[in-house]
């Protein structure tokens, strides 16, 4: 779907119709979004129940946590659908993709609304399967179908864990309805931990925490870009939603029943590992969309840092801090949805224009597609948590909660919070580096391929979709106060006790006190820029500027191939962290006259993801070995089969006869 097929008249009309449909989706998703916003602001909630076959029922409910996620979903679906309207017009997307997109989106809504186990499971799996089909929707792309297989299987296994968790709930409470379970689980004791672990594994698979993330960097890039925007933006958040729903809402018994300490510690550590390793792998990627996918792993990690910290705080009975950490997590969930969606859309139009995902074949795009470039830049700045954009605010809150954790909690948790803080700091720097690379290599400099040379700006609808999200990035960055007001409507431990502030302001009080006024910060930045713009006019007066070739050390001509490549950009880190990356480097040289005149030098460098080489590959190999050796049981020998019958009979006779 990424490649432009020659547009026939029929494909043009299909394109028109499907883009119209996408606009309909965009309009449609406003309704639930606004309703959910209302529920959130005024604390409404509702509950309906429909009969299902087999004496089961589908219950749905709104308000609180689910309303918040519905708002996120609607915001993103709105922009992505507008984007897709332009996207579908030019890519030869089959009809099925359009329908699947609808199923995918509506199943995500249903997941967030689900209020009992059957509904949740059914729509959860529908969401997974429809996204699977979207990943493989370009049926001839064999790589996509491989990625799809991995994704499908992993998500199915994850669902199995979720099912198990739910079944334990049912066993403990005898009910399938979340509200009743919530009430009934208070006395469940040890079972709560069982449920928590199962749920964490199950939902973690979807959220893409390390080491359950393997499917993510494969499946997200393989999907069409508008879908990968939704997958990375919202779908993996459904994993976060699940973790919050089970471990805080349901297991919290609604009344903030404190979680055991080790839950928080586990979540915190998982978050730290995921954030650091996710972004480290992102840094090494040449494939633009895979880079973004890995950075999603990182951001999920950051969100989990907040969740874990909040759990620890509520265990230590510090509600306001718990609220703060949770607010940070939820806030970052929204922010990540926004800028990751934006980035995937930008990447989508870049890939669409150049026909490649490899950044080392792009370059110089910002001159050819200025708007896309600008929006991508906004996204990059936001995701690097640089002020005055939204990423900064949520990371600031996370930092605050961690620091306060170091101050207040017991030594053990102190240490964990400390490490988490260091991880977060490291993450920030790594993220900055990888997005300098992502933007710099693919949008700046000189085109590295003819396709990049010939790239065209994306159509207006696609730009509109990105533009809205860029604006949201800025607004969420400079009006955090409104966000906290929104969050305090969610009935989760501590969120009620969040202090309220002036819309522009954000502050922590209580154990500590600090705060930022991002709007003033923005003002300061503008003031500084204005100053330095005016100062030279006063001091130096107007000077003309001469255009020339860049400095080339006296070589007469600099070619695009002499630019710094993405690989070269990250080479130092590959060397410094070789313990972690385990880079495989091979250099192949063809000589004309050895050893002086070379015809061709090929340099290939790859890194081995640990989780795969040390967990998944062995697992799959083991399974295959088992299967192969099991074939001997079905050797085709009739006597053997008769022997089975005899054996079974004799054994049963001896045991029970």
């Amino acid at each position, binding site marked *: 779907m990424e490649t432009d097929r020659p547009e026939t008249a029929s494909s043009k009309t299909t394109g028109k119709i499907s883009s119209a449909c996408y606009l309909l989706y965009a309009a449609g998703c406003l309704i639930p979004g606004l309703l959910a916003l209302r529920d959130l602001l005024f604390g409404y909630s509702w509950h309906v129940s429909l009969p299902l076959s087999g004496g089961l029922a589908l219950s749905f409910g709104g308000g609180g946590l689910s309303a918040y996620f519905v708002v996120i979903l609607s915001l993103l679906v709105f922009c992505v659908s507008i984007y897709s309207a332009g996207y579908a017009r030019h890519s030869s997307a089959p009809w099925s993709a359009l329908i699947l997109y609808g199923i995918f989106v509506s199943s995500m809504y249903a997941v967030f609304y689900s209020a009992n186990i059957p509904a949740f499971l059914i729509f959860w799996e529908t969401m997974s399967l429809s996204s699977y089909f979207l990943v493989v929707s370009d049926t001839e792309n064999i790589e996509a179908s491989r990625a799809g297989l991995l994704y499908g299987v992993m998500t199915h296994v994850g669902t199995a864990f979720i099912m198990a968790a739910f079944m334990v709930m049912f066993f403990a409470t005898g009910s399938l309805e979340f509200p009743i379970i919530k009430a009934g689980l208070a006395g469940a004791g040890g079972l709560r931990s069982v449920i928590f672990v199962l749920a964490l594994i199950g939902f973690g698979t979807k959220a893409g925490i390390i080491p359950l993330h393997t499917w993510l960097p494969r499946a997200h890039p393989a999907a069409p870009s508008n879908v990968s925007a939704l997958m990375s933006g919202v779908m993996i958040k459904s994993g976060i939603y699940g973790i919050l729903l089970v471990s805080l809402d349901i297991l919290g018994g609604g009344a903030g029943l404190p979680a055991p300490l080790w839950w928080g510690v586990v979540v915190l550590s998982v978050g730290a590992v995921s954030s650091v390793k996710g972004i480290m792998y992102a840094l090494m990627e040449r494939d633009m969309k895979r880079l973004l996918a890995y950075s999603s792993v990182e951001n999920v990690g950051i969100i989990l840092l907040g969740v874990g910290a909040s759990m620890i705080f509520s265990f230590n009975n510090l509600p306001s801090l718990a609220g703060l950490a949770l607010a940070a997590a939820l806030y970052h969930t929204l922010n990540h949805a926004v800028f990751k969606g934006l980035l995937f859309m930008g990447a989508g139009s870049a890939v669409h224009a150049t026909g490649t995902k490899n950044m080392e074949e792009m370059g110089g795009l910002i001159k050819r597609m200025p708007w896309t470039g600008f929006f991508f830049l906004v996204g990059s700045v936001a995701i690097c948590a640089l002020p005055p954009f939204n990423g900064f605010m949520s990371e600031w809150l996370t930092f605050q909660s961690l620091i306060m954790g170091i101050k207040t909690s017991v030594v053990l948790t102190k240490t964990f919070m400390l490490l988490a803080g260091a991880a977060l700091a490291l993450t920030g720097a790594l993220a900055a580096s990888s997005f300098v690379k992502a933007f710099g290599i693919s949008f*700046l400099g000189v085109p590295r391929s003819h396709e990049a040379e010939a790239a065209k700006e994306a159509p207006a609808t696609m730009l509109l979709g990105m533009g809205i999200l860029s604006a949201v990035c800025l607004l969420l960055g400079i009006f955090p106060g409104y966000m906290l007001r929104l969050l305090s409507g969610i009935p989760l431990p501590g969120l009620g006790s969040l202090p309220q*502030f002036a819309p522009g302001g954000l502050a922590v009080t209580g154990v500590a006190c600090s*705060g930022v006024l991002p709007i003033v910060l923005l003002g300061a930045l503008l003031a500084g820029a204005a100053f330095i713009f005016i100062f030279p006019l006063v001091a130096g007066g107007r000077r003309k500027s*001469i255009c020339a070739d860049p400095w080339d050390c006296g070589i007469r001509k600099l070619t695009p191939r002499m630019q*710094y490549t993405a690989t070269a950009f990250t080479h130092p880190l590959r060397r410094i962290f070789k313990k972690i990356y385990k880079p495989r480097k091979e250099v192949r040289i063809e000589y004309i006259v050895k050893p002086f005149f070379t015809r061709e030098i090929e340099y290939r460098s790859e890194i081995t993801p640990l989780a795969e080489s040390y967990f998944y590959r062995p697992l799959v190999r083991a399974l295959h070995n088992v299967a192969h050796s099991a074939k001997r049981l079905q050797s085709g020998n009739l006597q053997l089969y008769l022997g089975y019958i005899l054996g079974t009979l004799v054994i049963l006779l001896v045991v029970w006869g």
Partner: protein
Amino acid sequence: MESLQFMLILLLSPLAQGIIKKIKAMMQGRRGTPVLQPYYDLARLFKKDMVIPRTVSWIFHGAPYVVFASVLAASMLVPVFSAGRSTGLWAGGGVGFSGIGDIIATIYTLALGRFFLALGGLDAGTAFGGEGSSREMTVAILVEPSMMLAIFTAAVASGSTNLGVIANSGSFFFSPAHVLALAAFFVAIIAETGRIPVDNPDTHLELTMIHEGMLLEYSGKYLAMMEWAHYMKQMLLFTLAADLFFPYGMAGAGAGFGIAAAAGFWAAKMLILCFGMALAESTRAKMRFFQLPSLLGAAFVLSALSMITFVMTGK
């Protein structure tokens, strides 16, 4: 009045640079350039025409403004000599707390500048620019954790990341944790300001330069902005070190000195730090790039130690 204290950084940062150069020269037994040389350089550069590479986009033109603006904005967040309750552009600011800007905000605002500096280096599409940005970001990655941990120590000790609060709670200073943290922070400053042994500010030998590599294509006005921003960043970091680790003698602080006295204290601290920097530069030799991790790793260990001692001892 105090709300304009950042002007000191804006105006005096070239002087600090000059002083450091002078001290280095004297240590190396040279006469060295006059102390005001940086001002002369800036003035000259502002007057010169610019040579713009053909290959660049608006990022190249925008970067100097963003870099300068970010450093300036960051320095507006920092109490220079007065952490008074009423001071600061946004004292209170409806945020329900007193004092001046936030340390994390400061660091991240500086990071914004670095982000665009690196982009500006990449925009021309030359090898040196790329090399410079790559190395700059790498160094940043190595420095960030130790710097943040060092800051955590101060923040946790005073129970806030608010520079005003930190500077006001002068009770604890020179606890072992803070000494270690200061050491780590100092190494971080060396790396951030591109000083020997991490980077050589005076070289233009392509293969070794980091900061200069990114500036290679810049000239005239833009180069002036970049350099000025660099000076300001250096002085800002000095000031931060002072605020975080030996805030003694600030106006409006617990001790509550007068403006003049506080300014004097600040100048003294700056001189000390300049001397320390010069000393470090002229006693060390520039390291190979791939030896840096050991140095910065050491810094990280220092800051981690400081944090741990604090966690254990509680002071």
